[in-house]
């Protein structure tokens, strides 16, 4: 039998072998580090999980798509693999170490395969072992992929949380709300700021909204445009917007860039902005008058 003809046959043979020996492989894998650490409570559960993965590998082998990450067999166990990979990642393992543990799963299967094919032709045994190697390599790839995509999901979720956390709307006084902006103001963040500020204006029936940019490191023309949009939207709602926290360096940058903030009320400090809003509402804050002898 020529080597190049054997590829589909070895794949089929491998699939049949995996199906026959799923019980034994499942038992052996349950003792492997990867399964043992994920299914700490019950060994039976680990055996079941191992058998599910064996079934999936047998499916892939029968379909002959040993190198195809998207083979239908892998789809059914992706959740399972994802859970195992996530558990290892939580334990502080790098993706490379996890992949190494997956590679360790191959040895017990190879041993089983060799005992089963003791009487067979050497070339045939070699081809089957090679097919098994390819299959486990693909399994490793699948696990790597699941690990990486789980990490990406985490990053995306944290990015969203950061957006929400970084833009609180504070009720400074009756009818005065403020947003302390911290960090770089990009389009996505300015959209969130605008939405939460406008919602707060409606909820608090606020006549004044203060945008404090003390925590914004630099103001370029894009940031200025976002600020102006927010101010215009607040004005359309019927609230007056004040931009505060403009540091001297930022004031100079704005002038150098030729940005016209003339239509916006600006103040140096948040306190000045609040004082303006209070004065506009006819509220006077003054120190308590000294009452002479009663004071100590």
């Amino acid at each position, binding site marked *: 039998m020529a080597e190049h003809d054997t590829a589909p046959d070895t794949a089929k043979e491998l699939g049949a072998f995996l199906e026959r020996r799923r019980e034994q492989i499942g038992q052996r894998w349950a003792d492997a580090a990867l399964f043992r650490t994920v299914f700490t409570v019950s060994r039976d559960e680990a055996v079941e999980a191992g058998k599910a993965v064996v079934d999936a590998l047998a499916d892939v082998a029968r379909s002959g798509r040993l190198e195809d990450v998207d083979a239908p067999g892998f789809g059914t166990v992706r959740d399972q693999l994802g859970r195992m990979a996530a558990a290892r990642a939580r334990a502080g393992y790098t993706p490379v170490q996890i992949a190494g543990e997956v590679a360790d799963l191959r040895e017990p299967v190879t041993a089983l395969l060799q005992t089963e094919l003791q009487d067979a032709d050497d070339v045939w045994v070699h081809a089957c072992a090679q097919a098994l190697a390819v299959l486990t390599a693909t399994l490793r790839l699948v696990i790597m992929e699941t690990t990486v995509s789980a990490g990406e999901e985490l990053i995306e979720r944290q990015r969203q949380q950061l957006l929400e956390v970084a833009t609180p709307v504070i009720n400074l006084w009756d009818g005065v709300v403020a947003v302390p902006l911290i960090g770089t103001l990009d389009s996505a963040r300015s959209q969130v700021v605008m939405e939460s500020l406008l919602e707060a*204006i409606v909820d608090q029936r606020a*006549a004044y909204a203060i945008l404090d940019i003390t925590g914004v490191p630099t103001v370029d023309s894009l940031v200025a445009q976002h600020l102006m949009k927010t101010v*215009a*939207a607040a*004005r*359309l*709602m*019927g609230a007056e917007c004040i931009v505060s926290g403009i540091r001297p360096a930022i004031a100079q940058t704005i002038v150098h860039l030729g940005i016209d903030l003339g239509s916006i009320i600006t103040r140096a400090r948040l306190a000045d902005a609040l004082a303006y809003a209070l004065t*506009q509402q006819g509220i006077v804050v003054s120190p308590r008058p000294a009452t002479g002898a009663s004071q100590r």
Partner: protein
Amino acid sequence: MTGFVARHSGPGPGPVPVLALGDVLLVTLQGELHDGAAEQLQHDISQRIASSTTPVNGVVIDISGVEIVDSFLGRVLAEIAASSRLLAARTVLAGMRPAVAITLVEMGLTLPGLGTALDVERALALLGRAPSAAPTAHPEEGA
């Protein structure tokens, strides 16, 4: 208006009522404003200001019931404000929703000539306190 093709060929829900409250005209917009009704409203308001026996100092347009504003309605509002000002009345938009405000700003329609207020009550207070001769967007309140 001639450049616009009417989007709704069927009969609209009829003209928008214009209420007189002392020296202020109050218009409440609900839902979508059809092109014909918008033109009619523009005509009605300037007619009412001009023909009123008592002077009309302000026009309050309550848009708290409007969920979608397009560039056409934005222009109609700006034109109502401009024509009212020619007749010595200030226009105040009241109760714009956040989503509508964001849409208008994204379209670049900041309606610079219009006064704005959170609700009708504040719009009336704004008109009552501010002299109608000063057509500024931000009159000094309570100063």
